[in-house]
């Protein structure tokens, strides 16, 4: 599964995208838990989950959104375009 990061989440994690094996992560929130377990950078990126938004296969979701079968999950701060 492709995991993508944007804005300060990208900067904290240190990469824009990476291939992650989701294991038994059923939701985006489960995936966050698995990522945090990978180390410091992830823990810092996800330290305030209220500031983290999720898209699953390029559709807005949240931490409860199922990710089984998803090709791409993205994490980013609240959007600030326009």
């Amino acid at each position, binding site marked *: 599964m492709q995991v*993508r990061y944007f*804005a300060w989440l990208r900067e904290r994690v240190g990469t824009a995208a990476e291939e992650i094996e989701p294991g038994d992560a059923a939701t985006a929130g489960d995936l966050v838990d698995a990522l945090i377990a990978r180390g410091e950078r992830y823990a810092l990126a996800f330290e305030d989950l209220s500031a983290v938004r999720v898209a699953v296969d390029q559709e807005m979701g949240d931490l409860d959104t199922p990710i089984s079968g998803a090709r791409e999950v993205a994490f*980013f701060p609240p*959007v*600030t*375009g326009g």
Partner: protein
Amino acid sequence: MDAPTSTTVSVQTEDFDISAEVERITSANREIGAVVTFTGLVREITGEGPITAMELEHYPGMTERSLREIVEQARTRWPLDAVRLVHRFGKLAPGDRIVLVIAASRHREAAFGAATFLMDYLKTRAPFWKKEHGVEGPVWVDARESDQQIAARWGRSGL
């Protein structure tokens, strides 16, 4: 829904010309009586002080998709003859244009309503992030809580 050819979404680094974009829409349809445009610009002074540049990051693929969904939402709510969205990304300077929204209809109520809605939704749904370069170095712009409240007036949608 049959989207007329005049519905177009662009995500680009290039600048845009408001008159040219409006002309392209109105020259093709003589039933349009009202055209509303919104242009967003990089402000030189922000809450944090003066800035020298702004960087806009986006989520290629999802951006275009979310903008098209926002346009379709507007089309179900108002009788529109044409909609146009242009959003720039990359590095911009104070005074530069960031975003253009155009809504065209027979009468002004639909054009104003749709343009307002498109901006409200774009501000809260389209995957763009702004980073300002000011005296204290680069800072990611915080989302405005008020934008969420404003967008809430249109109710929940499936976006």
